């Protein structure tokens, strides 16, 4: 992820958070051979056009940045580059998929090091998927109306019992056990930023924690391995309780 500041710093510093400087994104793309993702503001389709022109591999239409449009997310279908979007529950996920999102990530509450919102959101998404299996034709039509999406999409999720796109988890993962928790709850991968960079200022510690979180995500049912990689990591980021965040500063509520 090409980002000027991790969510924890965006939260601390306040102000308007925008797409990163193209120069920084160029530098990151030149430095690595793996795919690079960059964030655009919700609804800011010109930031997305710019990111696509720069050649980034994926765009995250992210609530971590300050939204640019209070009514519309980016119409993602005309783009060549794939998008990932955040969601708190199934309806939000399906609306983003209808707009052309190629990946979904449960939102959590970015930059807090607190897993509670991530758990709430992944549980809401998976419970929503399970609920669809219990509904008859009329019930599915009513759900499609409630979710404001095409009934064909709702029916396909009801039948397949999974989203038609990959489901990641983000927002508050700070330890290897957090990462494995999200995988056991149904995520297919994790996004971690502040949890790695805010636990310690020392790049050696950051690298160790990043590796441990990757291993725990890969082998998320192997408790012995998770114990092994968690040993001696030191304190995780201090983090924030949800009650400590004023309602107006919650990031997850951005998006509609």
């Amino acid at each position, binding site marked *: 992820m090409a980002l000027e500041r991790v969510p924890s710093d965006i939260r601390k510093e306040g102000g308007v958070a925008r797409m990163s400087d193209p120069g920084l994104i160029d530098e990151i793309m030149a430095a690595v051979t*793996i795919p690079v993702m960059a964030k655009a503001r919700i609804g800011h389709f010109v930031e997305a056009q710019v990111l696509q022109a720069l050649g980034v591999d*994926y765009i995250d239409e992210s609530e971590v940045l300050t939204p640019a449009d209070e009514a519309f997310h980016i119409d993602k279908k005309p783009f*060549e580059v*794939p998008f990932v979007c955040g969601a708190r529950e199934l309806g939000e996920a399906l609306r983003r998929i209808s707009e052309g999102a190629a990946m979904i990530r449960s939102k959590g509450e970015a930059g807090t090091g607190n897993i509670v919102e991530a758990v709430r959101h992944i549980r809401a998404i998976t419970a929503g998927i399970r609920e669809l299996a219990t509904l008859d034709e009329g019930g599915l039509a009513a759900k499609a109306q409630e979710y404001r999406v095409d009934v064909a999409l709702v029916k396909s999720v009801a039948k397949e019992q999974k989203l038609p796109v990959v489901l990641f988890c983000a927002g508050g993962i700070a330890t290897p056990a957090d990462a494995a928790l999200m995988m056991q709850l149904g995520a297919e991968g994790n996004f971690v930023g502040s949890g790695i960079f805010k636990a310690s200022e020392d790049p050696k510690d950051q690298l160790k924690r990043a590796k441990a979180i990757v291993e725990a995500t890969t082998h998320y049912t192997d408790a012995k391995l998770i114990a092994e990689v968690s040993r001696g990591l030191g304190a995780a980021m201090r983090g924030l309780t949800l009650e400590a965040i004023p309602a107006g500063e919650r990031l997850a509520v951005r998006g509609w």
Partner: protein
Amino acid sequence: MIPGGESTTIGKLAAHYGIIEKLRERSAAGMPVWGTCGGAIFIARDVPLHPHPLAELMDLTVERNAFGRQVDSFEADLDVPALGARPFHAIFIRAPRIARVGPDVEVLATLDDGSIVAAKQGRLLATAFHPELTGDPRFHELFLGFGAG
């Protein structure tokens, strides 16, 4: 079968868990191995500037991201004589290309510009594209034809 994905990650984790050594032993003992896309990079003997360990099974030089980034991904109908007359519809995603093949390697398919995108060496198979994304089972059938190791 080594699926597509990101070869830096595949190589790092495979080395970390000791899978590379085991894979080399089993392959040398005759186990068929097929690498698609990132998997083709993983089984190639030579990948210029690859920063992390690879299995190095097949006598190929493979160039990563040879057609560009994610947005340069494409689809093409390939002429694959080993699979019969009907073209094979192939999906290339941030795909590699085979830049050189060793003397024991049989080229199975090339693009119009001459890029090699499928090759076979004994019980080893490499494809630069994703045969699992289209309904056409012919590459899978070819691989099954290699027999058990």
